């Protein structure tokens, strides 16, 4: 039951074992690595398919800007391998471990299956935008591949997009290829006072709409507006200066390097909300944020993606209130007690026509419905 109860555990040694286990399975399976995200989604009653043996970087040539790894390779291993070559994952996967009260390692496959994205989502995209190819085992137990190992590829359907964010309900990823980018020379964050959330989000939008290459823009009601600049040192210096001139703003604080990085990993992981029992992750058109917040009336909140991402914290679950506050976009119940998740749609309900297509797709990959059944319902 999603992290709370230990059930039977199947431990494949490699991708061939995964195919064999899935093909032979007569009962539902829940694919897991270290279990860092088991407490997200509707609770599933299933045997654990422990993928931790499928670890290790399979191919990486920095100049090609592509890394291929087995799906359960710890994210930390990937990040260290990249950093040793002056590179990183552009989408900067957030770590919700502190928020969810389960500080366990993440795997690259888990990050992709959840389509995670950090604060740079607004400029460079999410896991989906950097996930270029995979090998996987379908719910029917077939080993298959899609995409490729080169950054520019339109051969066949873009199935990596479909698998990203499918939470292990379509297929079990066994090997993934991701696009990587160079690390910037300098990482600088401006902390700017804002009188109100309205003033703060207006500033974020002006900054993102400027020519000064702001890489991330967030708002923390305690700290103020946060703007991030990354790149070559002379460029960062010049852009910070030009933006402050253009918008007439005076930063209260300027954070460089590790301090800048920590600011954004805390925001993207919503760690300031860790003491809340119920946290929603809400994606809306960025300009809607102040109005949506006024309707949401959360006990605590954080904004990222220029206002397009709202983390809203409450002491109890009221899905109708939260989803009723949105005119467009979607709300995911990121954190809630298992009893609430059992009776509340964790993922945003879809219009009937879209739900029908989604159901057919699920049947196309997992005709017997054995992979994480119900998790996304």
């Amino acid at each position, binding site marked *: 039951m999603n992290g709370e109860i230990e059930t039977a555990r199947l431990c494949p040694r490699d991708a061939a074992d995964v195919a064999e286990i899935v093909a032979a399975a007569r009962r539902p399976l829940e694919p897991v690595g270290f279990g860092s995200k088991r407490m997200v989604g509707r609770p599933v009653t299933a045997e654990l398919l422990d993928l931790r043996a499928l670890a290790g970087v399979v191919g990486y040539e920095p100049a090609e800007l592509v890394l291929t790894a087995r799906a359960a390779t710890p994210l930390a291993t990937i990040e260290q391998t990249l950093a040793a070559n002056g590179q990183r994952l552009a989408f900067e996967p957030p770590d919700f471990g502190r928020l969810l009260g389960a500080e366990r390692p993440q795997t690259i496959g888990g990050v992709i299956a959840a389509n995670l994205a950090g604060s740079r989502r607004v400029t460079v995209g999410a896991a989906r935008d950097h996930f270029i190819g995979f090998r996987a085992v379908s719910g029917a137990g*077939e080993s298959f591949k899609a995409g490729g190992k080169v950054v520019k590829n339109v051969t066949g359907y873009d199935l990596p997009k479909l698998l990203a964010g499918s939470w292990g309900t379509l297929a079990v990823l066994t090997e993934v290829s991701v696009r990587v980018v160079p690390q910037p020379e300098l990482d600088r964050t401006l902390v700017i006072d804002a009188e109100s959330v309205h003033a703060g989000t207006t500033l974020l939008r002006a900054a993102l709409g400027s020519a000064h290459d702001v890489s991330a823009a967030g708002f923390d009601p305690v700290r103020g507006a946060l703007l991030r600049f990354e790149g070559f040192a002379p460029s960062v210096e010049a852009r910070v200066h030009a933006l402050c001139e253009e918008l007439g703003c005076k930063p209260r604080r300027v954070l460089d390097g590790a301090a800048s990085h920590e600011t954004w990993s805390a925001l993207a992981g919503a760690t300031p909300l860790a003491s809340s029992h119920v946290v929603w992750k809400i994606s809306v058109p960025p300009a809607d944020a102040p109005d949506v917040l006024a309707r949401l009336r959360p006990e605590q909140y954080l904004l990222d993606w220029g206002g397009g991402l709202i983390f809203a914290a409450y002491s109890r679950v009221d899905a109708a209130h939260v989803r009723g506050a949105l005119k467009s976009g979607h709300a995911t119940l990121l954190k809630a007690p298992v009893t609430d998740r059992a009776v509340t749609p964790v993922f945003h309900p879809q219009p009937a026509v879209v739900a029908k297509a989604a159901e057919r797709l699920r049947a196309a990959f997992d005709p017997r419905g054995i992979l994480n059944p119900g998790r996304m319902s």
Partner: protein
Amino acid sequence: MICLPTPDQTIIARRASIVRALREFVAANGVIDEDVRLAAYETDALTAYRQRPLVVVLPETTAEVAAILAFANREGVKVVARGAGTSLSGGAIPAADAIVVGMGKFNRILDIDYANRCVVAQSGVTNLAISHAVADRAFYYAPDPSSQIACTIGGNVAENSGGVHCLKYGLTTNNVLGVELVTPEGEVVRLGGKHLDSGHYDLLGVTVGSEGLIGIVTEVTVRILKRPQTARALLIGFDTVETAGACVAAIIGEGIIPAGMEMMDRPAIHAAEAFVNVGYPLDVEALLIVELDGPAVEVDYLIERVRAIAAQNSARGIRVSTSERERLQFWAGRKSAFPAVGRLSPDYYCMDGTIPRRELPRVLAAIVEMQARYGLRVANVFHAGDGNLHPLILYDANVPGETDKAEAFGFEILKLCVDVGGVLTGEHGVGLEKRDLMTYQFDAVDLDVQHRVKHAFDPDVRFNPGKVFPTLRRCAEQGREHVHAGAERFPDLPRF
């Protein structure tokens, strides 16, 4: 020789009643059934193949598209969607038993939303028109396929189009926020919007690049970016393709992602220089154009960094643009490479594989060897930053057998791309052209899964028949017809 699908004669026999029914759904002039007017829809930019459609219908509203598709669903009639018809892979080539739904009347920009930095456009709006619509506020839409003056945003969504700047700014899929899609069953679906990501499965992500196989896109929401303050370019010559490749790797190794990085080989350099006279060096084996864009301080700084890297990598001459005019001159040769090569030969066939960049010397050497074997010449232009190759095979279709030879040559190049770890198509799409090569890159299970994804949207398999998925049938009839030099479609479009 690629087969067009064998048409269903029972559908063709019902043509008159289908035409009559379509006239109920759209304005009187919106149904085309006269032979002389249908001729305009026979092919796209893969002009070697052509097929007269059953009928063409030109709807003006989403409701009309939905009514047409619901009718086609009821009657079991196939459907081919068409934007501007600029596909280089035959993605919009009609079928004899299919309704072509032309989206040309979907030509309005519906919403320019600077607060959310996005534009909502009907799917028949051209790629460039979106950038023009937001130019006064110095915004633009980043993906820039070479046909951007003509190609539609709906077509870009279908093909997941790229462009020379996609290493830094991404493909269509990374820049589309939402679509309105009419399904093969005639239902209207909105995927995405002005917000980011999907709250459930990423159906938008699978729609982009689906090559017209899962429905018709009627409306597209794209993100727009502030235009970079400045752009400058370097023109760098090399004695060997290997040193040029090493220079590209070194630039990326230093953490620099240029806005564009293009390579040309000797035949392409010579053809381009003869065509536009912009001062390309003629004594080098490879020429690299590196463009940097962004804030002026950054661009000036990086220009010097790249200049130094090039000098350390045996560059044979480095020119740096000092004016916008000079920058455009550097590009002029590259952007006219296709017509320039077209002057060397009555016909050329453009390929589109992607390879890991490290394999470039090996692949180019193999292409040289193949030239001797096929007795045909090749000029190579190359998106060096992302490994997307565009070999241009020169041939003369008036010489019996030469077209088949060019096609066989091209397919051998694409198979080599797969052999070295690459893919069949980087940006032009599989379409009709590369359909039968899919089994080379994907095994039967891979393709079966893709088939099932199509079935999830299009259970009766009626959308864009004969495209993307390989067929094992032998050719029933000749679909190919030759259009000779000068008569190609869109002769005035730049191609790069």
